[in-house]
């Protein structure tokens, strides 16, 4: 069994030692919700992540660095803050391999709320994940010893026994990474008192108000396309929150005009960012788009640029939820925003929008009546992490409330 400690970076270790150390009461006493030792440490990590040398190489670490500032952490702390809110205990995190930073958010909130944590980091994690690890290990030098005792990030191979032991030991297991990962990890039992918090496969789409588009000036439209590009391309359109379809809400003819302009602005925005497509992905885009046509899901395929492929949906309600490629967007027109209620199902996560009023969005939320969509956010905010994720308020999920009467 090869288990490597990445944070603190002490190298090879064993599961027995790891579990024994995590079970011990840390120096200076048990961690509490909003523990100063943790806040000190996290704000030290924040300073390192916000170092221009780091953000230049890994721009996606800027938001994480911002999120870990003391003021932001205090804002994320859930009420009541008088001791009745208690940590859950030991939390086992299984993050996705290739969204480099999600593990850091999930773990940081769990540490902030006073939990002992063990994160299973993929051996394939690279780039930004390595930079986060480096920042954590650097910040550890000046941190309270309780941090190194209670917070662990480990890497191990395909070793069911380690997953089994960690699962059996934890009070809460957090599983990111899609249906298959959730089902795989769930084969390992947790204790009767423990819970799972799961983030299975989700899909997301966008909606544009056709009158809202018409009312926007050219700069606003261009900014909207650039924001949409960030939502869609940052994780190669593979994140759960990346939009895979665009619904145009309004009269058909005006919608077609708006869409044509949007497509061109999107292609320009992607070009301006200097994003390029790898040949393998270009092939994948064709496989995905042609496959959608073969299935009868799409009636027309448009090649707007080498980075933007569009599909006309045969049936508006049936958008392809599986990822087709990078920069493949299904389009359809609906008369009213509330018609989306006929599109949405439980798997739908994020609706990114442009041009709607708060009232229209609330009407949609009412019409959805809980059958899908956990987030309604403007263009550009699809990927911004929030302590409320997939409908779960994470700081609350990571704690419990004691009754004192």
């Amino acid at each position, binding site marked *: 069994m090869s288990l490597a400690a990445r944070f603190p970076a002490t190298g090879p270790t064993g599961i027995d030692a790891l579990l024994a150390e995590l079970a011990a009461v840390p120096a200076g006493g048990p961690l509490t919700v909003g523990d100063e030792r943790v806040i000190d440490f996290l704000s030290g990590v924040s300073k390192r992540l916000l170092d221009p040398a780091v953000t230049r190489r890994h721009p996606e670490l800027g938001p994480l660095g911002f999120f870990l500032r003391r003021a932001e952490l205090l804002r994320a702390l859930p009420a009541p803050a008088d001791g009745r809110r208690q940590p859950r205990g030991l939390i086992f995190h299984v993050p*996705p391999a290739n969204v480099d930073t999600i593990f850091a958010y999930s773990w940081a909130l769990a540490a902030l709320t006073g939990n002992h944590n063990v994160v299973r980091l993929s051996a*394939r994690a690279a780039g930004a994940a390595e930079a986060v690890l480096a920042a954590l290990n650097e910040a550890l030098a000046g941190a309270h010893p309780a941090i190194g005792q209670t917070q662990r990030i480990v890497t191990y191979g395909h070793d069911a026994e380690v997953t089994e032991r960690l699962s059996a030991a934890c009070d809460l297991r957090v599983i990111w990474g899609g249906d298959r*990962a959730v089902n795989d990890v769930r084969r390992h039992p947790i204790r009767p008192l423990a819970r799972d918090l799961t983030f299975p496969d989700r899909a997301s789409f966008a909606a544009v108000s056709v009158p809202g588009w018409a009312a926007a000036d050219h700069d606003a439209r261009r900014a909207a396309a650039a924001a949409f590009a960030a939502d869609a391309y940052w994780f*190669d359109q593979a994140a759960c929150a990346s939009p895979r379809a665009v619904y145009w809400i309004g009269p058909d003819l005006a919608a077609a005009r708006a869409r044509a302009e949007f497509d061109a602005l999107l292609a320009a925005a992607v070009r301006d960012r200097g994003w390029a497509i790898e040949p*393998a992905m*270009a092939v994948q885009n064709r496989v995905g*788009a*042609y496959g959608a046509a073969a299935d009868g899901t799409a*009636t027309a395929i448009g090649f707007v640029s080498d980075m933007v492929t569009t599909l006309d949906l045969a049936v508006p309600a049936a958008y392809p939820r599986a990822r087709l490629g990078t920069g493949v967007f299904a389009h359809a027109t609906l008369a009213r925003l509330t018609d989306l209620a006929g599109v949405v199902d439980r798997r739908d996560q994020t609706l990114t929008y442009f041009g709607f009023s708060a009232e229209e969005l609330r009407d949609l939320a009412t019409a959805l009546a809980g059958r899908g969509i956990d987030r309604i956010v403007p263009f550009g905010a699809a990927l911004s992490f929030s302590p409320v994720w997939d409908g779960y308020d994470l700081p609350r999920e990571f704690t419990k409330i004691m009754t004192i009467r």
Partner: protein
Amino acid sequence: MSVTAEGVFGRAQADKEAWLLPELTGLIEHHRAHCPPYARILDAIGHRPGTPYAAVADLPWLPVRLFKTHELKSIGDGEVVKTLSSSGTTGAGVSRVFLDRAAATAQTRALSRTMRAVLGPARLPMMIVDSRSIITDRTAYSARGAGVLGMATLGRDHVWVLDERGEPDLPAIRDFLARHGQAPFLIFGFTFLVWRFLYEPAAAAGFDLSHGVLVHSGGWKRLAAAAVDGVEFRRRFADGTGLRRIHNFYGMVEQIGTIFLEGPEGGSLYCPDFADVVIRDPATWREAPAGTPGLIEVVSTLPTSHPGHVLLTEDLGVVHGVDDGDWPGKRFSVLGRLPRAEARGCSDTIGRGGAA
């Protein structure tokens, strides 16, 4: 659609394209009429019935991986006499190719005509660099087994170079050479196996393979560690065993029966008269000029029971020249597989797949 009687490497490029274009355009209409998913793809990309095409490179292509994700056939279920499958090296699913009687016959005939260019008209004694279990063990039936079976019909008095344990069967090779080694004989196998289990033991044992004609396929990736490429492969075989007639070939199950064959001088693959290649720039999808690498598109008039007549592969290649080599037409090389795109996203966790 007939191929020239005497050989299939006879047409200069202009003649070939002039013959291929109407044949392939006809196949587009044939498959449009008989394969509804294919018709929907053509509709969606704006290729209406009767669209005129000025060149082979203008014809609409399908990504070959579509045969892994979709069932594409232009015959009724009752007409299927053979279903071929191949798993790619990526393990991303299995291609399924459906043949009716006519297509199955045409592919066998085309293969034997193509091979005649290097084997001559007679059926030669044949050495297969594989083990018999590759075709007898039904549970392990594979693309490799299908390839061996397809080629085995071109030879006679077969000997299997590998025994049931996968070790070179030296007595069997010795016996085969004693009986057939003084006249032309055929050697077939996958490139890596041929190197590892024929070249190495034959060179060590001092076998004389000078009357052999080696036909092999499979890529150079596993030989890269031993610093063996096409040139080195030929040189070492010639020096170590006397074997000089060596023909690499390139082909895929989605165009079964169509093989692109290395010419006598080595170094380039040639297209039979009923097939061709177009190298495409993956950024623009336009045809790349000779000398510029790109993705290989393969076209063939053989696929009549499935829309595999114009396929974009995920292999990289380069055209070296046109009408300037051993045989007429384009000559090209396969440079290797397109590197896979890094998978990203929430649905990618450790514990999944595990290939990396």
